[in-house]
């Protein structure tokens, strides 16, 4: 039988420190640090989108990114629209895969770049352009660049930047009666 000699309880103290550190770390990061549901600090989303009558697909993203700088990409409504060349950005993938739904946190900014596609289709066409707005009044957003309710002409670009102020499920939708499927030409913004 081995009898332990009297000694400083080094390992025991170290063990207790490790245990306390483990518990403390979990407590600090889980209970004291605020959490954003899925994404961290970068909070200005760029949404590159095409608009065409609902029968041909309605609003569809073709690229999304987090803006990682304070100024917006240069924008020209007629000759070519915006691009990400020379812009600092990070990948942003919306949590939904339908290419119409954006998820954002309260306080985040969203910039839409929308290109009106030429509607070469068989469904009857009632307009020469689409429009864009958030379909709830008062609008839970602060517009910082461009304007809501503007027109998206075919073969031209439209942009608007706003900050979302309140949590909820919002719809962005077309404001111009463009075709028979006009009422279904919308997408969702989920703000948590």
């Amino acid at each position: 039988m081995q009898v332990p000699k009297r000694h400083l309880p080094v390992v025991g103290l170290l063990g207790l420190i490790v245990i306390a550190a483990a518990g403390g770390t979990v407590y600090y990061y889980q209970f004291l640090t605020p959490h954003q549901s899925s994404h961290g600090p970068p909070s200005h989303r760029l949404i590159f989108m095409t608009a065409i009558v609902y029968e041909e697909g309605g609003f569809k993203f073709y690229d999304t990114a987090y803006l990682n700088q304070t100024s917006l990409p240069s924008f020209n409504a007629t000759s070519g629209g915006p691009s990400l060349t020379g812009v600092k950005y990070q990948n942003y993938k919306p949590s939904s895969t339908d290419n119409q739904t954006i998820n954002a946190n309260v306080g985040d900014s969203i910039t839409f770049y929308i290109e009106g596609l030429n509607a070469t289709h068989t469904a009857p066409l009632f307009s020469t352009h689409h429009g864009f707005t958030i379909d709830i009044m008062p609008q839970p957003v602060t517009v910082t660049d461009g304007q809501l309710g503007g027109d998206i002409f075919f073969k031209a670009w439209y942009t608007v930047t706003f900050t979302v102020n309140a949590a909820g499920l919002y719809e962005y939708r077309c404001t111009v009666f463009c075709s028979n499927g006009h009422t279904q030409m919308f997408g969702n913004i989920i703000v948590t």
Partner: protein
Amino acid sequence: MAVPSNKKKGVLDPIIALLKWTWERLERTLLLGLKIVFPSRFISPLGFLGMLTVIVFIVLGVTGALLLFHFTPFFGSCPPSPANVTYVPTSTCNQAFNSVQSINNNVAWGSIIRNIHYHASNAMVLLAVMHMFYQYFGGRYKLRYEILWVTGIILGVVTVIEAYTGYDLIFNIRGQLAINIGQTLTFYSPVIGADLARIIFGFSFNDLAIRFYAFHVFIIPIIMLAIMAVHLPRNLVLDIPVASAITGIILIMGGLFPVDVGVKYDPNVETQITFPEWYFTSLYAFIRVKGLAPLIAGAIIPTIFILIFTVAPFFDRGKKIAMIDRPFWVALGVASLGQIAIVTVWGFRAANPLVALTGPGQLVIDPTLFFGSLLLAIALGYGFVYAFVRWRRAKIDALRAARKPIPYRKLQPYMFSKTEVYSLLGGLLLLQAFLDVSIFRALIDNLNNFVLLEIGMVLVAFAAAVHIYRISNQAR
């Protein structure tokens, strides 16, 4: 056993009695034909790395079975995009990836299960390689273990193939790179290559998805189980706390480094630069060497490397198994470890090893630098280790000849005092209780990474408590 015992009655006695009862009945079954020893004191986990690999295999089986519920082994069709738009992904394009993404984002606890599955797959490859090298350096392939050794090497290769089919099923650009390389290597192998490629990879991504699914979830696991029947030794060691700690570490890794779904593969979009999983970057480096035929680089060189290990027991015929008596084999092992490390790092580098690989223009590796670094590492590693082992041997022999004691440092085990044991166990118990509450809070708040991290910590804390308990028992 009617020996009157003066042992005190414990709280756990009925549970222990029930476990004993079950165990004795289980002896009537095939299960306990394997002699599984549960060591009562701590022994080095390096000795039962194989058993830990089996544990991780079981973890993979369970999580994989759960993932089956939500995975779609179907690629679908990706229509070409309109002329003036660069990227229009549709819901019909790459449905396998879409289903993985929905497991990650939408399915309840899907990201938890997927993270465990991913990190356990890495752990299994790592543990298998560590297991092999431990047995190699310990000379364990002698002592009539030759068949175990050879089947073990085959099992290792099959494990890597299983991991390969697994990460291809995600159909992100990383999986697509692996599929491309695998398909090309198979296609250009001699005589049967073209036919074999059609059998394995099929004619389209839809074929590929369903075939790799069949391989990954059924065919290869069955093959692995069959090989295990001739690889598992009859005497096994299973240390529950260590197994629990390993599982816990896998979960903690999953919580700290949650795995991404990656970039969706779309045939209409130009491929971006990406890397294979870490156990394939070595192959990737060889394939990218300038002027080396793909078949030689991707198939023949690795096969030779594996063959050298396979035949090792048939050339290392000496009776002695200690490292110090096998300088050639120890030096060879260290050299091969160094080689694996260097080639793996090369897999992530450009033609200039000081530059990180970022663009497709840097993909080709300069053969002089590449093979130069390899040869240098092999020569240095082999030479130094060989010389060192021979020098130690000579020194010990000289001491023996002079009848002097061989200097050998015995570590005095640290003895816990009673207070230390009680406070540590109490602390761990408090930690466990706090973690349990935190797990529920995290589940409610949908913080999946915290859930994984904290379940892992619970498992590790359990292992620590059992360990402290048993070393305190020794001191009593």
